[in-house]
């Protein structure tokens, strides 16, 4: 005997069936490792010989000066780089959205192109560009801006600035594409009527573009915050955390703990959970501040 479900229920069942493969994959590939890592953060010991220690690793964090340095560095990148990049992307996007500009496609491609480069190779290129006898120093010397080569990577703030510069170069175009697609959705009539009312370009930008782009700005802000908190390739390859660990990022410290030092997987998992918490808290704050729809 066949059980006949009511139409409504059958429909629901079918939609759940469609969701099932993706749900299972995400649960298996993403949530299961996260739970495992969470459990791992309560253990200590090298590799196989691990034992349960409760919140010991979390208490340990507070005495870890290198963790504090890494956290501080990551926040420096976050506070300076994310706003800088988003503002730059916004400006570029509204410039390139101007219907009067010629060769728009070319400019858009040029600005987006850095996103297609590999993280490791562009970091290495930046490192060689800012070497003592590198491109940046020879240009500045030839222009007589400086009379002695600057040790970019050997000093704390120049090294941090190079990293910020590198990330900005790599990711501005990526965010710009989001803004561009958002701008396409804004009705040109709004701008036209604003123009008729005598609004200047900067007024249009502040009063029309930014408010209407808000959901997308929020999205890019959360994505960039998330990306910066997980910064790894750039610091590893550009400065390798130096000088004296003053540019090391949290992720690089996690890598060190897992693979360079005697492996402390429990402690490394603890730190990655702190990153997870930070991302969650910061995203929540940004949503509260930025999204006033409800």
């Amino acid at each position, binding site marked *: 005997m066949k059980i006949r479900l009511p139409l409504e229920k059958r429909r629901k069942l079918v939609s759940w069936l469609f969701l099932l493969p993706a749900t299972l994959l995400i649960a298996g590939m993403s949530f299961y490792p996260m739970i495992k890592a969470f459990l791992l953060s309560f253990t*200590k*010991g*090298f*590799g*196989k010989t691990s034992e349960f220690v409760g919140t010991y690793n979390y208490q*340990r964090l507070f*005495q*870890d*000066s*290198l963790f504090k340095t890494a956290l501080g560095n990551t926040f420096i990148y976050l506070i300076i780089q994310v706003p800088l990049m988003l503002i730059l992307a916004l400006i570029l996007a509204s410039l390139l959205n101007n219907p009067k500009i010629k060769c728009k496609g070319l400019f858009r491609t040029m600005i987006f192109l850095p996103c297609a480069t590999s993280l490791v190779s562009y970091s290495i290129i930046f*490192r*060689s560009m800012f*070497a*003592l*006898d590198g491109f940046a120093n020879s240009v500045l010397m030839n222009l007589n801006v400086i009379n002695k080569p600057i*040790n970019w*990577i*050997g000093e704390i703030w120049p090294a941090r600035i190079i990293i910020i510069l590198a990330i900005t170069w790599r990711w501005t175009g990526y965010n710009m594409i989001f803004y561009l697609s958002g701008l396409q959705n804004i009705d040109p009539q709004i701008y036209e009527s604003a123009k008729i009312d005598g609004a200047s370009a900067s007024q249009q930008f502040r009063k029309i573009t930014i408010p209407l782009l808000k959901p997308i700005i929020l999205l890019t802000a959360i994505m960039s915050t998330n990306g910066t908190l997980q910064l790894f390739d750039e610091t590893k390859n550009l400065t390798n955390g*130096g*000088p*004296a*660990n003053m540019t090391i990022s949290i992720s690089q410290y996690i890598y*060190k703990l*897992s*693979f*360079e*030092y*005697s*492996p*402390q*997987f429990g*402690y490394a998992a603890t730190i990655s959970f702190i990153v997870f918490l930070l991302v969650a808290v910061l995203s929540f704050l940004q949503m509260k501040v930025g999204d006033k729809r409800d």
Partner: protein
Amino acid sequence: MKRKLLSVTLMIAMVACLFTGCSKNDGSSKTGSNNAGSKTSDQVTLTVWCWDPKFNCFAMDTAGEIYAKDHPNVKVEVIETAWNDIQTKLTTAVTGQSNTLPDIILMQDNALAKNIINYPDAFFDLTNSGIKFDQFASFKTALGTVNGKNYSVPFDNGAAITCYRTDILEQAGYTIDDFTNITWKEFIEKGKVVLEKTGKPLLSNQAGSPDLLMLMMQSAGAWVLDENGKPNFKDNAVLKEVIDTYVELEKSGVLVEVNDWDQYVSSINSTTVAGAMNGCWIIATVTSAADQSGLWGVTNIPKLSCAGATNYSSQGGSSWLVCANSKNKDVAADFLGATFGGSVELYETILPSSGALATYLPAGESAAYAKPQDFFRGDTIYLKITEYASKVPQVSYGVYNYEARDAIGTAITKIVAGTDYNTAISEAQKELEFQMGQ
């Protein structure tokens, strides 16, 4: 009509792509089954991970050929794997309990103690495998010995040497003999004269790299960890002398700091500096500037003034280990014993073309080692270095070697930048104690 034609063409193109894709797959699956077939017979394939195609991979290939003469059923397959990748894969395989490791891996000496002590079950104990460990330089076998068990077969030599540009020394009125068996004080004084007369510093060093400091520490038989493996920074007189010497080298301009390895290599090859001090594998870098043939000379390193100081040390170098999970571990052990631990022929073959210097002492007596090297003004440098290797003071690097090296590297960066010695060193000690205190 046009549309139909287009779609038919596209369909044909897609189907064609599909077929070419298939044929490619066919090819790879065939080679796969071939490999599987060879395993079923008496054939043994030893897989090896090592990282330098011109150096250790080449040596391993040569060893495989030599061993195959007597054991035609044994084939050695070298898989080029960067050292950092070997470490990552090793850690992952051992902690994840997956069997993804090869039969033999090459390991940096710096990481030997760390990996053997953390994962004693991961490596095959070679103590009773018939390998004659007493025929290797003792400081090398000591690195791979844990609780009286030998786990590693020493490979390349890391004995410290100093290479000098003799033509630049001559301009300052010195010969290489003036830089042989000297102290660091004399080195700095003479270095200042060279700098003044020729404008060339004697040495370059990667900023923040602890290599040179560790080399100096070992030359006095001292280390940054005490015999119980505890950090020993604060009241370590040798460390104090080493750091003071380094700071003086840097301040006087006799040593210049560069930012990365590429710049270090180029500072040597482009004559920014008049010398290079490192493990003897640096010879490969020095000789790569072929136009400087006949200008370089090799001698030992300066010594410190503390008790136990010598003119000999070690930096870098690597050793072979057999993985305990290997199905052919006895074959692998016999292979290593017969080649790297018993074949002078092997070392004679790899020396001229790769400069791979042995810590297998009988190899030092072979004719290849006694051959004068034109690049080094006809000097028999390989005999010299083999002799240096036998005099290197023995130290135990310990499990926390990488942590300790990092702490020292951070401290020296701070001290060179102007931080007070005691502050930087106690911070370094605290950091290391934290890493070790889990």
